[in-house]
């Protein structure tokens, strides 16, 4: 009977004497579908207690990489290690240590309640029935779904299903979280809630891979970034390092637009004297302007010039964030 099950002989004692520095490591992972290379020698390392944001445009290979890391898809070549273990050899241990929040909605039994779904998945993780029920209640509380615990999942909104998905990943308190577009369908409050939960897990030592297209959410949240484009890693490093790839040239200004002496736009254009362009960004009297600087002009100098021309700058911000600028700059580079 054991042969029928082909139960892998798990050897927890196999764990290396020194714990591995990386909670998750992918080395030169490649994968093709129908002759099209989706991932090309992608490497990724995530240390315990850190969030690695996986960025990339649609079709970059983020979801495929997450699926490979979770063991749902095998790589054509390359290797994956979770807590120093090879998932192909130590499948059961690795799955206990991994929490996956998939990108799709269709991952629950819609006729069952959120609570029953979680109890079912907890049982599949080998948790005893009574503890599974307790744990399901705990994680539902954590994601603020306790009031909807008895509702069938088909009555959940997308956002609630996503939170339920996060709750499922929390069931076993895993050391590695793979989160694919977790905040995609969430309102800002719910998204912040999920991010706070993940941040808490990180503080407790979990490693997180956070695949997303929402660039704004990684600032102050992700420790490291890997940027994928057409299956290649275009950037790998910290968020500040990523931002060094951006040189913002376009800014949105809000000027006090009630000064005497003619049209403000004309005055600031004259004042800039060819160092950049200013154009009205909102309706007349709104005080909103778009400033586009020449490559050799420093923002501070330009603002000082405007101030000297009696233009009072009330606010100034990048038209696109530095992360977005860097993202676009890196993604638009030619493939190697």
């Amino acid at each position, binding site marked *: *009977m*054991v042969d*029928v*099950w*082909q*139960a*892998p*002989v*798990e*050897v927890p*004692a196999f764990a290396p004497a020194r714990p591995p520095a990386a909670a998750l490591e992918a080395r030169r992972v490649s*994968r093709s*579908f129908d002759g099209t290379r989706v991932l090309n020698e992608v490497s990724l390392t995530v240390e315990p207690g850190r969030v690695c944001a996986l960025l990339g445009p649609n079709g970059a290979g983020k979801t*495929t990489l997450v*699926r490979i890391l*979770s*063991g*749902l*898809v*095998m790589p054509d070549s390359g290797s994956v290690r979770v807590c120093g273990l090879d998932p192909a050899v130590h*499948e*059961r*241990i690795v*799955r*206990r240590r*991994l929490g*996956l929040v*998939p990108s*799709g*909605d*269709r*991952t*629950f*039994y*819609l*006729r*069952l309640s959120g609570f*029953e779904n979680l*109890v*079912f*998945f907890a*049982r*599949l*993780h*080998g948790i005893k*029935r009574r503890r599974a029920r307790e744990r399901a209640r705990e994680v539902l509380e954590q994601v603020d779904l306790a009031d909807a615990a008895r509702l*069938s999942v088909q009555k959940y909104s997308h956002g609630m299903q996503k939170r339920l998905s996060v709750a*499922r990943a929390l069931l076993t308190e895993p050391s590695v979280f793979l989160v694919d577009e977790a905040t995609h369908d969430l309102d800002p409050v719910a998204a912040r809630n999920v991010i706070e939960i993940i941040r808490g897990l990180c503080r407790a030592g979990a490693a997180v891979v956070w695949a997303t297209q929402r660039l704004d959410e990684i600032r102050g949240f992700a420790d490291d970034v890997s940027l994928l484009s057409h299956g290649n890693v275009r950037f790998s490093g910290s968020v500040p390092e990523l931002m060094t790839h951006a040189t913002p040239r376009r800014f949105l200004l809000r000027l006090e637009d009630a000064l005497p002496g003619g049209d403000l736009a004309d005055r600031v254009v004259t004042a800039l004297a060819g160092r950049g362009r200013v154009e009205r960004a909102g309706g007349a009297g709104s005080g909103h302007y778009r400033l586009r600087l020449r490559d050799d002009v420093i923002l501070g100098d330009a603002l000082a010039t405007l101030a000297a021309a009696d233009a009072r700058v009330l606010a100034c911000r990048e038209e696109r964030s530095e992360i977005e600028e860097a993202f676009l700059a890196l993604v638009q580079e030619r493939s190697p």
Partner: protein
Amino acid sequence: MSVEVVRERRTAILVEELGKLPAFLRRDLLTALSYRVAFVSDVLNLVLQTATFYFVGLMVDDDVLPTYGGNTTSYLEFAVVGIALSMFIALGLSRVARAVRAEQMMGTLESVLTTPTSPATVQLGSVVYDLIYIPIRTGLFLVLAAALFGLDFDASGVGAAAAVLLAFIPFVWGLGIITAAGALTIRGSTAGVGFGVSVLTLVSGAYFPLDLFPGWIQALAEFNPLAIAIEGMREAMLGSAGWSAVAGDVLTLLPMSIASLVCGIVAFRLALKRERRAGTLGHY
């Protein structure tokens, strides 16, 4: 690491895996209970189907039917056993085959496979509800038919009939799992299940005696597990045959059932491996 430690770990894993089956059972029971109308209409359908055969039976001369243990039988008594087992195989095959496919379609198969659960447990767990429900449904059908239409079943043959059914059940499971494996790899291949069941049923003597067929089909029918099971159950329930009379049928069915089950498990394992390699597990 000693052999004993390895064996202990394997036993622990096996116990853990078996402990997950009630979770699958509960999941599918709750899902089935959420479709109450379907459940009630299924029972009503059974009654109506039996009524149809009752009235067809009024046109059939009992003399053309075979006798069992020297007892003559009515057409309804003859047909009810055939109907019960052909429904058993039809329902068993389609539901077992579609269970995993349904998981794939719902998108839950991947969620299940990201847990530390063996593929064998997933496949068994996906069908455990049907494996229990369908034999109960078959028994309920026979009891209902006997009670409503006054069929003269021999109560002393119930044990022998159950033995035949038990020997036949793994054959259906195996065939269902083979079909499930096919459905994982070739989407939509469950459509062929209906055709296969029709062929098996036609040459099983479920609705009419096999004597009516040409000799070569009768010869083929001797290797049809459904035909063997039906004849065995008729002998037990209509002919007052003892255990010894059905022992031959049980012994013939057992190797077929084991072969079917082993082939099913291997086929499913291979299909799952192929899907993971191809990266198409979540496709539908």
